[in-house]
Structure formats: structure tokens, C-alpha cells
């Protein structure tokens, strides 16, 4: 676990890398999340100051976007597409199976901290649904069996 000094130093690096960028807040938040797995609340004042906005504004931006997390996710993140094309191929059924197997609802993490389940709305894989993003890798034609194998690999 990083302590707050390490975090502040890393954030300083990120901010320096974005100093010439117009409207840099989203790229900064992405970099922060990439570094720590989430956006620690304590970094917002530092970012806000650099971007010349209030802390409330920085917080408002961070919470507006579904991607940014206020808490760390599990070791693995399983994102299942819930959108229409995937629904026509049984996405709801596969999602129900995932929720039951993992004992999770959307946005929850298993008690052992291993797996986070999240909804996602369209991966552009609508001609080979149901689709998923497994730790950033695309998966198509998802079935209950395929999902079980993925979950097994994560445990």
C-alpha cells in the first residue's frame, strides 16, 4: 500500500506530464486511476490546485463519470455488457448467472477482494454478443459455461 507521501509524489509527476495540455482534467484522472486503481479523495485538492479549479469542482467531475472509482476495485474486474444487442443474445441470462455464482450485484466486489462485477453499455461487439470486458480484454459470445471458466481463472 502506498502512503500519502508516495501518492502525492506520483500525482505531482502526473500533473507535470499534463502541464501543457488543454482541459487536462480527464486525462489526469485516468492516469491517477491507472496508477492507484482508483482516485483517492485526498489527491483531489492537489489536482484542483494545479487545474485552477475548486476542490468541489474536481470532485464533481470525478463523480460524474462512471469510470472513476472512489475506492479500489477487486484484483479482477469483470464488466458485462447490458445493452440491447447483447440482450437479444441472452445477456440478461448470463448476467443473472454471474450475479448468482459470484453472489454479487452490480458494482460489488467479492469479500476476498478478488472480483468486481460491473455493467458496461456496449463494447462495439454487438454482432458477437453477449460480450464482456475481462480485465480490459474483450470477450464475445459469452455463455454461462464461458463465464464459469473466466471466473475460475480469476479465483
Amino acid at each position, binding site marked *: 500500500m502506498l502512503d500519502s507521501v508516495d501518492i502525492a509524489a506520483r500525482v505531482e509527476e502526473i500533473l507535470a506530464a499534463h502541464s501543457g495540455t*488543454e*482541459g*487536462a*482534467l*480527464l*486525462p489526469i*484522472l*485516468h492516469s491517477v486511476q491507472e496508477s492507484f486503481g482508483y482516485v483517492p479523495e485526498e489527491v483531489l485538492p492537489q489536482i484542483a490546485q494545479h*487545474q485552477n479549479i475548486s476542490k468541489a469542482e474536481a470532485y*464533481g*467531475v470525478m463523480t*460524474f*463519470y*462512471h*469510470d*472513476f472509482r472512489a475506492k479500489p476495485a477487486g484484483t479482477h474486474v469483470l464488466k458485462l455488457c*447490458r*445493452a*440491447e*444487442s*447483447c*440482450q*437479444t*443474445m441472452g445477456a440478461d441470462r448470463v448476467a443473472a448467472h454471474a450475479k448468482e455464482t459470484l453472489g454479487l450485484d452490480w458494482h460489488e466486489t467479492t469479500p476476498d477482494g478478488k472480483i468486481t462485477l460491473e455493467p*458496461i*453499455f*456496449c*463494447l*462495439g*461487439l*454487438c*454482432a*458477437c*454478443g453477449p*460480450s464482456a*470486458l475481462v480485465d*480490459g*480484454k*474483450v*470477450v*464475445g*459470445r459469452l455463455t454461462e459455461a464461458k463465464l464459469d471458466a473466466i471466473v475460475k481463472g480469476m479465483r
Partner: protein
Amino acid sequence: MRIWIPRDASAKALGAEEVVTAVKAEAARRGVEVTITRNGSRGMVWLEPLVEVETPEGRVAFGPMTPEDVAQIFDGGELALGLTEDLPWLRAQTRLTFARCGIIDPVSLDEYRAHGGLKGLTRALAMTGAEVVQEVLNSGLRGRGGAGFPTGIKWKTVHDAPIKPELGEKKYIVTNADEGDSGTFADRMIMEGDPFTLIEGMIIAGIAVGATKGFIYSRSEYPDANEVMAAAIAVGRVEGLLGQNVLGSGKVFELELRVGAGAYVCGEETALLNSLEGKRGTVRAKPPLPALQGFMGRPTVVNNVISLASVPVILAEGAEHYASFGIGRSKGTIPLQIAGNVKHGGLFEIAFGLTLDRIVNEIGGGTASGRPVKAVQVGGPLGAWIPVSQFDTPFGYEEYAGQNALIGHAGLTVADDTADMMAMARFAMEFCAIESCGKCTPCRIGAVRGVETLDRIARGDTAAIPLLTDLCETMKSGSLCALGGFTPYPVMSALTHFPDDFTGAAREAAE
């Protein structure tokens, strides 16, 4: 031996990486030297991963390839499909925008050039901005992002907008690559398969309006597209396509890729601009038009990926050539994205004018499940569900508007007869509630009420149906943007064409 294995996300999602590993192992076992190129997709998603092999006669296709079957690439077998160019699905298309997609190495500028790339830009560099604008105007190109606004008119507004370069003022070209609609993947496919087409289109737009800086606003749901796009931009910089001296012309065009953060509403152009500026992705009231006060309050072209990616061919072949395709006021070609429960899903580029009957039943081959088609949602989550009885409507902007529908970004979600249209209507409301930017009440609160009302109907309370209709009217008339304003399309079309799915619950409850 030269082999192509797509790096397109749909190919990867269906096992392309495993196929690459297996092909390398099989080649090594046989002592055959192979060069593997990771191309884009030819658009035939049901055949992915579609592997191609170079032969003296042309490229031969094999698919859908699996790691177990890779020996067939060397020995032939049941997955051999013959010459790729002869596949009926490809032959039936008119590929203007997607002419190179799936053929070339996406990040090779040399291959891009060898296949007709940069012809349009070269021509544009010898023209004035006003002449380029006129050419795009003459082509009849309309925005492919959904609204169908004539691209040339938008460009003319930005061209004519005054700025003071001496004060450091700039104009901008922003590509809307926030392709969030379910059933759509044309932007993704071109970014993964032929990213230079988009870059070339953006530079031409820059020349046309006098913009020197461009942004591509993509989405975090597209990790593969972002990787290819970033690589292509890097190549473009090194090879002098981008930067301070575009192809030695003295013109400036800098390009930056930005990635959104999972907010559908950021596809709306003003929300996108706010997001690009580092703000919450809330919708701005119009006027002012983004064309006059866009990114950082400066004149900005915001165009969809496909609108911009269609510009190079318009400049290369001439406006008349492009305008010779299509019907009525829908000129040129449209990359149809055939998705959902369909046998032959994928990207099919063709002149406007096809009926859904041909698209779904002939080209798509009917449903994947083999069951009857129930309806097709055209235009993503804000598009209407079209029943089979309206399958004869020609694919065009005005033609669809006349049926209380929209073509949107030309995504088609096919549903078979097991689809529950009330559940689909509920999802539309739920999606609107999740993705609402929160600026106006009819959308923010209305969508939540919509979900509750549909839950009442699901419990057999048919008295709630008129409430749903009223709510849709309120959302339609009282919303600032099309998220709240068009969510009634899928809801009302489901209710109008499939009332039994809504009253069935009441019957069941009564029994």
C-alpha cells in the same frame, strides 16, 4: 508465406490472439516461415477470426478460425472460403469509406498510400479552404453521428467564423468517437482497421475551415481502437503527416487522442466539448452553436468518425462520384451495422436505400436463433423498434423520419420473437435514468418515473399505460437534448407495435 489475422476487437473477442499463437506454433512445427500482419476486420463478424493467406491468385480466406483448425491454413479444409474478394457478402457492397479496412496493415502509412490513401489530402492541399468546403457541400454528405446535418454547411459556418490568430486563437476539429449506441461499431472498426482515413479526413477538415488542432474523443470501452489510433497518430507525426508541416505543405495540424470515462451522454456534442475541457459532461444549451463557440469558446467542427472518414474519398474521387450513390437527400453510402440476434452480423457498406427486409433477411440471413424476427431497433438506444410490417421502408433520413423512426448511426439490433418488448421499453427508461446528465427534469426525473410506471404495468396495472404515454410526451417536448427527448422512441414504438407484451402481464395476473 504472408498471413493476415485481424486485430479488430470482434476478432479478438472471438479468439484471434489464440489463433495467432497456434498459427505460429503450427508454422514452426512445419518449418514454414510466416509473416503475420494484424489487419482490421473485413466486417464479416460471423466469420471472425477470418484468417487470410496470400496466394498468386489473391488472398484466400479461412474462417471462423479456431486454434484447433489452424492446420487448414496450410492444407486446406472445410474452413477454406476461397478468394476473399469473391465472397458474396463483400461483393455486394459499395465500399467507399471502408475501402481499405481489413485489407491493409492499419498502422502502415506506406500501405495506406499504396491503396489510394492521401489522394484526397493531396488534392485538398492545392485548393482553398472555401473550395474544399464547397466540394463537401456538393457531395451531399450528412452527419453520420445521428442528426444528419449537412457536413458542408457546418464546415462553412466554422470557415466563416472570425478568429484572431495573433492573439493565439485557434479553430478546432473534434472527432466524435464516443460511439455509445448499442448495435453500432463502424467508428470502432475504422479506427482499428484504417485509422489514417480518419486522420486524413480531419486534416482535410482543418484545411477547409482553417483549424490547426484536432481532438479525437474516443471511449474507454474501446481499448483496442484507442491503441491502434494512438499508434497511427504516432506514425503520422514521425512521417510528417501531422505536425507543423503537413506533407511538406507548410500547413499545421496537431492531433490528440482523448478518452472519455464511461458516460453515454458525452456523445452529445456539447457534453463532449465540456468533457474535453475537463468538466462534467453536461449538455450546453444551444445557441451558441459549437461551430461558433465550441472547444474553449472557439469555433469548432464536431463531426462523427464516419462523417470525417468519408471525406478523403469525396476529395479523391470528387463530390459527384459520392453523390451519385444513395436516394433522395440521403447521398452516398452508409456502413450498416447489423447486430443483435442475427445470423450474419457485421458491417455492410452500401448506398442508402435498402429496405430492412433485404438488410435483415437477405444480408443478415435472418436471426441467429433461427426463430422469426420480431423487430429491429434502428439507431441505438434512442431509436425506434421497427416491426416486420414496416420492413419495406428504404434506408434514408427522411424515409425513416416519415415512419416516426430515425437511422441514427445506422446500427441495427435484430430481436427474435422471444424478445419481451416491455422489458426493452423498461431498459430504455433505465438507461436514460442512468445516463442522464441531470440538467433537465423531464429527463432526470421522468426516466425514473418511466421505470416505475413500466414496473406497474408489468404487475398487471394497465391503468398505468396512459401515464406512460403522457410521460413520453413530456420527455419529448421538455428535454434539452435527444437523450431525454428521444428515449420515448423505443418506448412508444414498443408500446404501439407490441401492445400485447404490455397487456399480457395483466392477462396473466387475471388468470
